[in-house]
C-alpha cells in the first residue's frame, strides 16, 4: 500500500474542515478527488501532503506513506516518496532557471542531477531559460519532470489541467498512464473527473467536507447544463487591430501581423495554446502594451481583468471596492452586489474570497466603473463547472447590457459556450 489516510478531521481553527475521510492508494492506482469549489478537495490534498499545518491548519488522524506516518518523515526523505504539484504551479518553483529549479529538487534526494526527465516532460533545450518566463503549462510540466526525477512514488496533483491546453492535457494523461504502469500512485484533485475516466480511476466525491461517494462508477456525476453565450451585437466596431506585431524586450515575436475586428456590444473568445499570445493581445487592446508595429484602436474605455484578479482591486474588502467604484453611491453598490450575486461576501476580506468570487467581484467592480470594453483573462480558470457557470452568467449580463467583452481562455467549457472564437497560434490569428 502506497498511501493510507484515516483523517478524523482536518481543517482550519474556526473555519472549514473535512471529516471522516479514509483513503487508500495502491501501486499503479489513480484516485480522482472531485467536488464543487469549497467541498474540501484542496484541504484533503494539504492533509495528505502534510502542508496543512503550514497554512495554520490541523490534522487529526493519520496519513501513512509506505507504512510510515507522514509526520515522521524528514523533508528530504519525504521528497523522495511524495511529490505535490499545486494548482497554481508557479508557487511551486524556487529556482530562477529551469535547470537550477529542476536540479535543486533532485539534489535533495540524490547527490547528482540527471537532466533526462526534462526531455521526457518536453523541456529539453530550455535548461537555461528563466522560470519566470515560462507559461503556466510549461511550469506545470517542469514540476512534473521534478516529480519523475525524484522518483516519488506518490504524486498528488491539485487541478493539473487548469493551465494546460489540449495538447498539454493529452501529454499529461499519457504521462500519468505511463507512470501508473510503473507502479506509481496518483491522487488527482480535479473538478473535471470525466477527463480521467479512461484511466479507470477510483472516484472520491467530496461534499461539504465529507465523502459522498467512493468507488469506480460515474453514476453520481452531476448534470450541468452547458451555458450558451450568443455573440451579442451592437453597431460599429469597438476594437480594431491592424497588422499588429509585438515582442517583449529580449524575446522573439509574440504576435505577428494580427488583424482583428471586434464589434461593439459583442462577445469574443480568444483561444490558443499556452504561450500563443492571448494575454498579450488583451493587454495591447487595453493599452497596457504598445505594439512594436501596427495599430490598435479602441472605442470607449477598456478595462483589463488579469488572471489573478487581486491585481485589479483597489480596496481591501468587496464592499469598499464596490462603493469606491460606484463613486460613493452605496445604493448603487448594493444593487450591483445583488445583480452579480455577491451579497453574501461583501463583508469578507479579499484574501478570504474564492477564485470564483474574486473574478465575479472584479467584473462587478468594473461594471460599476462604467467601462465599455471588458478584457477578461482566463475568467474561469481553476473553477468547477458550477462556479464557472456563475462567471459565465456575469459575462452574459455584461453583453446583454451592450458591453463589449473579449475573453482569453483555453477553458473548453467557456470556449464551447461562446459563438465567436478567434484562434491564435504562435502569434498569428488562424
Amino acid at each position, binding site marked *: 500500500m502506497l498511501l493510507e489516510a484515516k483523517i478524523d478531521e482536518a481543517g482550519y481553527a474556526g473555519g472549514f474542515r473535512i471529516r471522516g475521510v479514509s483513503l487508500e492508494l495502491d501501486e499503479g492506482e489513480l484516485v480522482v478527488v472531485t467536488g464543487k469549489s469549497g467541498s474540501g478537495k484542496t484541504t484533503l490534498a494539504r492533509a495528505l501532503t502534510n502542508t496543512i499545518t503550514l497554512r495554520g491548519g490541523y490534522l487529526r488522524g493519520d496519513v501513512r506513506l509506505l507504512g510510515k506516518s507522514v509526520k515522521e518523515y*524528514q*523533508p528530504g526523505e519525504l521528497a523522495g516518496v511524495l511529490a505535490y504539484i499545486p494548482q497554481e504551479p508557479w508557487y511551486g518553483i524556487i529556482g530562477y532557471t529551469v535547470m*537550477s529549479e529542476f536540479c*535543486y529538487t533532485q539534489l535533495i534526494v*540524490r547527490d547528482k542531477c540527471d537532466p533526462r526527465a526534462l526531455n521526457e516532460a518536453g523541456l529539453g533545450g530550455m535548461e537555461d531559460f528563466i522560470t519566470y518566463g515560462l507559461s503556466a503549462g510549461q511550469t506545470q510540466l517542469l514540476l512534473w519532470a521534478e516529480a519523475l526525477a525524484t522518483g516519488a512514488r506518490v504524486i498528488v496533483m491539485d487541478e493539473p489541467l487548469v493551465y494546460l491546453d489540449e495538447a498539454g492535457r493529452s501529454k499529461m494523461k499519457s504521462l500519468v498512464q505511463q507512470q501508473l504502469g510503473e507502479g506509481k500512485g496518483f491522487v488527482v484533485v480535479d473538478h473535471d473527473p470525466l477527463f480521467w475516466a479512461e484511466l479507470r480511476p477510483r472516484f472520491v466525491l467530496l461534499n461539504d467536507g465529507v465523502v459522498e461517494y467512493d468507488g469506480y462508477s460515474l453514476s453520481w456525476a452531476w448534470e450541468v447544463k452547458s451555458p450558451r453565450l450568443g455573440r451579442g451585437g451592437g453597431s460599429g466596431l469597438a476594437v480594431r487591430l491592424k497588422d499588429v506585431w509585438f515582442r517583449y524586450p529580449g524575446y522573439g515575436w509574440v504576435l505577428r501581423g494580427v488583424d482583428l475586428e471586434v464589434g461593439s456590444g459583442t462577445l469574443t473568445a480568444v483561444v490558443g495554446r499556452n504561450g500563443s499570445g492571448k494575454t498579450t493581445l488583451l493587454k495591447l487592446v487595453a493599452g*497596457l502594451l504598445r505594439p512594436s508595429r501596427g495599430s490598435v484602436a479602441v472605442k470607449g474605455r477598456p478595462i483589463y481583468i488579469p488572471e489573478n484578479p487581486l*491585481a485589479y482591486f483597489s480596496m481591501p474588502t468587496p464592499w469598499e471596492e464596490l462603493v469606491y467604484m460606484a463613486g460613493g453611491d452605496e445604493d448603487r453598490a448594493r444593487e450591483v452586489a445583488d445583480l452579480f450575486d455577491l451579497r453574501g461576501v461583501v463583508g469578507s476580506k479579499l484574501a478570504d474570497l474564492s477564485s470564483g468570487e474574486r473574478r465575479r467581484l472584479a467584473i462587478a467592480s468594473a461594471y460599476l466603473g462604467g467601462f465599455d470594453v471588458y478584457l477578461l483573462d482566463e475568467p474561469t480558470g481553476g473553477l468547477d463547472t458550477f462556479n464557472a457557470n456563475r462567471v459565465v452568467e456575469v459575462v452574459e449580463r455584461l453583453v446583454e447590457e451592450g458591453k463589449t467583452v473579449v475573453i482569453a481562455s483555453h477553458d473548453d467549457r467557456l470556449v464551447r459556450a461562446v459563438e465567436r472564437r478567434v484562434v491564435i497560434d504562435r502569434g498569428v490569428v488562424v
Partner: protein
Amino acid sequence: MSLIAALVNLVYRALFLRGEEGFRLSYTWSKLLYLASGLLVVTKPGAVSALVVMGSTLPLSVVWPGWSWLYSALVLSLIPAAWFSLTAYVSGYVGLPGVDAVGAVVVLVRSLAVSLLILFLAAALSPVKVANILLRLRAPGYYPLLTWRTIPYGLRVLVDSIHIGVLKREKPHRRLAPAVAIMLEYGGFVEEYNWLKVGGRVKGVLPTRSSAVHTALLTAASLGLVVLYVVLP
C-alpha cells in the same frame, strides 16, 4: 504608462531579463578582474578615464545582455549620475564647495561610467554560482535562486497593478496595496508548496556551464583597461 511603471520596467530589464547565459557563464575571477580594472582606471581624475571605462563596458554589454539591456541600464545610470552632477553644480551657488559647468559634466560622465560598470557586473552575476557557494558552505542555497525568481515576479505584479490603475484612472500610489497583497499571498503559497525543497538538505551542488568566449572577452577587456591605465596621463 506611469513614471513608476516605466522605472520598474527599466529595473526588470537591467537585472532580470536574462537567464543563465552570456557573461553569467564566464568565470568568477574574470568578472572580479574586470571590476578591479574598471575601478582602477576611474581612479585617474578627469573625464577621459571614465570614457575609457564606458568605451569598454558598452561594447561588452552589446555582446550580452544586448541593446535592450543597454538602453535600460543607460537610463537607470543617468538618474544617479544626473543627480550627483546637478547637486555638485548647485552646491557652489549655496556656499558649499561645488564645481563649474565643465566639472559638472565630468561628474556626470564619471558617475555614469561607474554606475554602468556596476550594473553590467550585477547583470553578469550568476545566481546559480552564488547558490553553489552557499551550498558548499552548507547554507541554504535557494536564497539567491528564489530572490532572482521573486523580484521579477513582484516587479511584474507591480507593473500590472499600476497599469490597471491607469485604466481605473487612479494615482499610482493606490496600486501599491494590491501589489503587496499579491506578494504576501505569493509568499504564503511558496512557503507551503516548497517546504520539502526548503526543509530538505541538498546533497550536492547545482550543475554549471562555463563560457570560454565570454571569459576571454572579459579578460581581454580587463587587460586593455590596465594598459590604458598605464598609458593615460
